[in-house]
């Protein structure tokens, strides 16, 4: 039961990272890959019909955590109070910037909101990365099941490392997305170049961070076999990504980048399992999915409607979104 709930949360979170990940990665790269107004538009419009739906995965994951593991949701969200409120403000800033930039047709207006959009996107990745890093590392939870994550606690070297890798990996993901979705022109050229330049950094970051994780959590990794499998998936995906990027095969590069993110998340999940919020310094003081298990009715309900909801989403998207996925061309206003 608890395992199913753990997997369900993993799927929703992975969905968020893969889908909104390319929005955030694209945002991070926006100022570098597109210079003039036509290029900016082509870049931004590549996510226009999708970003809002992508963000919904975060809401779905948060609400599922709320329904399935109320105590863990409560401890984590109150513990990460300021960082999470900052995440909210940045999500708002990103959404406002995206929606408002074309309401007034003036270069200064565009330039301002593009910078807001890029800054919010990059900072969102960093903050969510810090949160993820601290979840893998563990948080100083007390007997009352709560903690308060001051920045001096949260901004530790390991979490910052995770944040940096997240920034690099999602920038790479965004570049692969643009390679797949934008038709020709300088945006594609620069995205391909970004992909080539980011690749060695992502590889180095991944290796260093994996090593750090093994040193830090070595004996307390929950499911070593799955953690290794995640690493293998990540390794293979990186190889495929390299080859696809060299051939400018955007779709393959994007899928490989998504698989790489799945590999990273699988390793992270296998490391913390069965804890959703491990303790620090001893992970066993944390909150796990068995002691804080959902009631059977809760879980049955949530599993049923999540599966129905995701099937419906797939149906909607094949019926509708398939007809909307034209490629984004420089100069075209979709």
């Amino acid at each position, binding site marked *: 039961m608890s395992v199913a709930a753990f997997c369900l949360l993993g799927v929703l979170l992975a969905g968020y990272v893969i889908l909104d990940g390319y929005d955030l990665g694209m945002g991070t790269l926006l100022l570098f890959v597109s210079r003039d107004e036509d290029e900016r538009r082509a870049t931004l419009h590549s996510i226009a019909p999708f970003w809002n739906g992508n963000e919904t995965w975060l809401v779905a994951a948060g609400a599922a955590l709320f329904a399935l593991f109320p105590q863990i949701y409560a401890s984590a969200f109150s513990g990460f109070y300021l960082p999470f409120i900052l995440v909210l403000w940045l999500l*708002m800033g990103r959404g406002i910037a995206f929606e408002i930039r074309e309401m007034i047709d003036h270069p200064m207006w565009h330039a301002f909101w593009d910078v807001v959009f890029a800054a919010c996107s990059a900072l969102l990745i960093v903050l969510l990365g810090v949160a993820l890093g601290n979840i893998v590392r563990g948080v100083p939870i007390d007997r009352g099941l709560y903690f308060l994550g001051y920045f001096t606690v949260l901004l530790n070297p390991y979490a910052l490392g995770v944040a940096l890798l997240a920034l690099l990996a999602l920038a790479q993901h965004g570049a692969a997305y643009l390679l797949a979705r934008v038709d020709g022109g300088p945006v594609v050229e620069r995205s391909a170049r970004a992909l080539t330049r980011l690749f060695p950094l992502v590889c180095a970051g991944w290796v260093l961070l994996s090593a750090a994780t093994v040193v830090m959590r070595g004996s307390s990794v929950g499911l070593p076999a799955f953690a290794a499998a995640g690493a293998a998936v990540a390794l293979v995906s990186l190889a495929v990504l390299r080859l696809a990027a060299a051939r400018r095969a955007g779709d393959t590069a994007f899928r490989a980048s998504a698989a790489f993110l799945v590999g990273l998340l699988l390793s992270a999940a296998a490391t913390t399992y069965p804890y959703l919020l491990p303790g620090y310094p001893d992970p066993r003081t944390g909150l796990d999915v068995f002691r804080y298990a959902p009631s059977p*009715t809760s879980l049955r309900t949530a599993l049923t409607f999540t599966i129905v909801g995701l099937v419906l989403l797939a149906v909607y998207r094949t019926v509708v979104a398939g007809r909307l996925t034209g490629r984004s061309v420089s100069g075209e206003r979709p």
Partner: protein
Amino acid sequence: MENVIADRVQFSFTIMFHYLFPIVTMGLAPMIAGFQLRAARAGDGVADAAARFWTRIFALNFAAGVVTGIPMEFQFGTNWAPFAARAGSIVGQPLAMEAMFAFFGESVFLGAMLYGRGRLSPRMHAFAAVMVWLGAWLSGFFIIVSDAWMQHPVGYAVAGGGTIVLTDIGAVLLSPFAWWQFLHAITGAVVAGGFIVAGVGAFYLLANRDHAVARRFVRTGVVTAFVASLLVVFPTGDRNGANVTAYQPVKLAAMEGLFRSEHGAPLAIIGMPDTQHRRLIDPIEVPDVLSFLAYGNFNASVRGLDDYARADTPPVALTYYAYHVMVGLGTIFVGIAALGVLLLWLKRLEQARWLLWILMLAIPFPSIANEAGWVSAEVGRQPWIVYGLMRTADGASTNVVSGETIFTVAGFAGIYALLILLYVMVVLREVGNGPGAAPETDAPSATRGAEAGA
């Protein structure tokens, strides 16, 4: 400042600001779907222009609703951790369902609505509008199910350690308390939508422009507002009142400003509650009517606030005023909409400039009534966060200090001030551009849609 006060300030501020936008989305969605269906079936050009214009306004509202909605979801955990931990197994379910069934569908079909003109067939395009309508209402339904459960808990058991666990999701989703609350809120939103559409139409007529579309706005808006404003009163308002009377009698007493229990209790039309001396100042009352409305009997006894322990009564003045603002405005809306329908029927509405002025200036008031209704419902629920099961003071996060919350309240206030400024600016610009400004051919109109959404 006490933790719980800071947390309540933040929650009430962020939710009241957020709700400004869902009122409009839930209210406009059925009319947009109606325009779109008519355009698809009858090839009605005016309906098509109307659909396009309101879709642009809708998209702005939807975006503002999304960005201000996510903080609501997070705040249960950040500011109300003990409440979330105890009641999450139930309260979290409808929120997750909202994401799965409402948000996912809405995001796909809104994309289709905004970017599909010219790419999708007119029927498919109209279908997307209907799905967006369904999504907007479903979203409201799930949220109200969560709230109604906090007002009147059902389908639960209390487990060891005081945790409240879900036993019957059917009971939670089909709770009559939730359904009447939902129907009351949704018809209230449609009143707002009707007045907005009619009011903008009235503005164009007064400004002597866009006549064909403006007439359609006024007609559709006034008729919609009339039907909805009647439904707000009866049966939805009446049944909602019956549920409050049955399950939350102390809230009823606070809403009505009834301090002493009485046989044949009067209904206070106006008057100011004086909580010091436990009376209404300068009341205008209709004798016996409250007893009748509450229990169907002019002589029935209605319990007053003094019958309850002070610790169990809600803040009286706020509950009372919010309720009276809602009821007073609701009554005025029935009157204005009825006049509008009468003059429409007599074909005199366009000449009645005074009524066009009233319709235009009425635009913000249904939103005020909707917000006031929620204030009376939620402040009247105090001191409980889950009625009868958990007190609000026990629900606030203890590990988050009030200074942090005050800081974040200030942050939200700043961001929302900027947001409302941009929103008003852009909406006024769209209204200024008008429905006629949309080009006739397909390709550029898709661009306009994209601009509204992007």
